[in-house]
């Protein structure tokens, strides 16, 4: 049946996150942004709090690790994750990205790891009461972002190990990650077929954290450079094992990940956009211009409504993409549509919100959050594939034999 309602559990999750978001996270948000970090104590408390929110389960655990046992019944994992991600990003985008867990590293391990690898790499997140842990995803290099097949980090078999050499940049939680999924190539001239994905663990000899970036937005979330110098990685950490790479599977691993994560990133964008929209709405509701309530000015009302409906349009595509994922339907196009629309809708929401609130929007102390969201949102049209790259993914599925641009 066509239905657009959250389940009772999802509603509870949303309300739970919203109330913590409002009373606990929002008040800290600007401070974190200024200090460029979220204190670990806070993350630890938040982690146990979010566990209690869903009984013994971390709301993201199911998403990160995948269902414990296989069943044919569609699960609502992706839908629930989207609802949670939007709401937490509404509270603060940086904390959403700083949550302990495998993060963006989870989906490739889940999609391509052997059972042994999944157990080994996910088990460390099951109980983090003693220590918080993160995973990360290392694809981007100084010379290769959108053009994934241009990566130059090399891997060479040596006995039971691989030797990795290269540099990764802009890696979310890269510095503190317990392990990072690193993409490398045996032979750059082979393009995608030459690519391999490894799980590289912190402390592996030859694996260093480089520069920690100073950024426009998402300042409280760590973005790191990673350096691999004759880094020796056991062959057992080659994702999926040797035989998996007879084809272009390595590259497909990187891409498959995106079908699951793009809608979530889009959901976060909707959350930030919603924060800005609600701020502007409340401003409009509570203020008068020339003695008239602002919503009576058609041009401003229209502006406000336009922000809201663009976000709704994006959210409905997010929901469709995660619904497809939950039902095991191929959703690469829909995932990209959600991401492309959400990035744009949320960016213009943040820009327009500032404009609607007038000079207040950029000046006043009170409006500092609005200014922060405006800085945070930009990257949502950049990471996980820029808006342009999403349109390439979409158009490849619209045209016959389109090979890229």
């Amino acid at each position, binding site marked *: *049946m066509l239905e657009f309602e959250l*389940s009772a559990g999802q509603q509870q999750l949303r309300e739970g996150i919203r109330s913590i978001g409002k009373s606990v996270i929002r008040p800290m948000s600007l401070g974190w942004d200024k200090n460029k970090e979220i204190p670990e104590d806070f993350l630890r408390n938040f982690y146990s709090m979010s566990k209690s929110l869903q009984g013994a389960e971390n709301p993201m655990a199911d998403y990160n690790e995948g269902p414990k046992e296989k069943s044919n019944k569609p699960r609502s994992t992706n839908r629930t994750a989207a609802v949670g991600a939007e709401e937490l990003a509404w509270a603060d985008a940086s904390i959403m990205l700083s949550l302990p867990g495998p993060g963006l590293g989870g989906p490739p391990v889940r999609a391509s790891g052997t059972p042994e690898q999944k157990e080994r790499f996910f088990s460390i997140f099951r109980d983090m009461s003693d220590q918080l842990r993160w995973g990360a995803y290392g694809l981007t290099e100084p010379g290769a972002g959108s053009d994934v097949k241009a990566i130059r980090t090399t891997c060479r078999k040596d006995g039971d190990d691989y030797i990795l050499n290269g540099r990764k940049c802009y890696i979310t939680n890269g510095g503190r990650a317990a392990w990072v999924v690193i993409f490398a190539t045996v032979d750059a001239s082979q393009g995608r077929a030459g690519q391999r994905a490894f799980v590289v663990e912190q402390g592996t000899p030859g694996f260093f954290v480089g520069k920690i970036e100073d950024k426009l937005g998402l300042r409280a979330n760590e973005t790191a450079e990673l350096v691999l110098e004759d880094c020796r990685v056991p062959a057992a950490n080659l994702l999926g094992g040797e035989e998996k790479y007879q084809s272009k599977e390595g590259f497909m691993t990187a891409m498959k990940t995106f079908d699951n994560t793009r809608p979530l990133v889009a959901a976060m964008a909707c959350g930030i956009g919603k924060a800005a929209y609600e701020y502007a709405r409340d401003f409009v509701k509570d203020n008068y211009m020339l003695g008239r309530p602002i*919503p009576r000015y058609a041009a401003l009302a229209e502006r*406000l409504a336009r922000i809201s*409906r663009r976000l709704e*349009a994006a959210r409905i595509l997010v*929901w469709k993409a995660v619904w497809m994922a939950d039902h095991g339907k191929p959703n690469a196009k829909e995932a990209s549509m959600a991401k492309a629309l959400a990035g744009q809708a949320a960016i213009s929401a943040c820009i327009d919100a500032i404009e609607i609130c007038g000079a207040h929007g950029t000046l006043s102390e009170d409006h500092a959050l609005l200014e922060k969201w405006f800085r945070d949102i930009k990257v949502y049209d950049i990471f996980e594939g820029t808006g342009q790259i999403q349109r390439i993914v979409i158009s490849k599925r619209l045209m016959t034999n389109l090979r890229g641009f």
Partner: protein
Amino acid sequence: MISFEPTEDQRLIQETVGELAKTTLAPRAREFEAAREVADDVQQVIGEMGLALAAVPEAHGGQELGLLTAVLINEGLSRGDSATPFGLHGFGPYVWAAQELASSDQLTDLLTPLAAGKPGGAVAWSEVKARKDRAAFVTTASKSGDGYTLSGSKCFVGGVAAADRFIVFADVEGEATDAPWSGSGAFVVKRDAPGLKLGKRHETLGLACADFGRLELDGVDVNEADRLRGGDDFVAATLRFFARYSLTVAARQVGLCKSSFDITRDYCDIREAFGKPIGHFQAVAFTLADRHMDAESAGELCRRAAWAWDARKPFETCLAYTAQAVAHAHEAAMRCGDDAVQLHGGAGFMRDVIVEKMMRDAKQTALVGMTAEQMDQVAALVACRAKLTPELVLPTPDAQAILT
């Protein structure tokens, strides 16, 4: 639960309507345009399928399938030809106005002819002249005996030529207060009522197979029983009427978005320039991707809004969802029509290709019922929990002073 799967029944209707759209409406769109009407055989087929009354309760001769099904039907028909739904009997605002404004007894009477396959009625809202003294209809209903006498000039009345009766909006003598649009009322007028005259048919930009015309009321007498009171809140009932009808119109825009997109995508796949299909140029491919996002998001927003009405969500929720869906669909359709012509190049400008018609239809459809701007105003008022006062939420009927 969030789900994008239609029910089995809805899927069947979608399939049937889709087939009809593809095999009959699309190939005959130009024929209907030239004839300036939808052919009788098609009227009959669609009438027999009962599609116009899909959302009407069974007690009144409908199929009681809900607004969502009506939305799917409108989208499906429009996918074949974006103008046809406007020329079909029973697809105008009449059925929706009747459902919201009439009492149960009145409704049976109003819908019986339609259920029996007759053309049905029309709604006369828009005024030829603007009123200067206060916000109200220029057309008046003065009290006379037990009833009223209607006088005025209406325009833009859709389906006027075939209508057997009209729902006429007017300013009721002695009922107005200081509030704008206070004292407004709606009355049923039979076509053969003395004093009622049809004016000339409007020449229009698009939707040529549908007729829009003037209606002159010169001392037309009606009874108290002909007054449609809309329950206890006339403004709210009128708003519900416009919202629900506008949503079916938005669904037609979605059909237009999807068909213009499909046609354009196919063209870009085969049309070659500089040695490759034009769709393989990024600027073209990205435009297609954007229009695809428009079509899909507008479609799902319309479905969500209809779902909310059917699920009896709070009025404000239904209204907000509807406003968002309608505004987005109108804008999306304009972009889809425009880019369809653009990406066809010179061919797009020629009548041999259907997209120029779609572009004209899209613009005209965007002015039916409530416009994107009006819907945005409604959505903003709901969002700000401001009062839904009639002068802000209802389409202005009195802005037609430019017509003479």
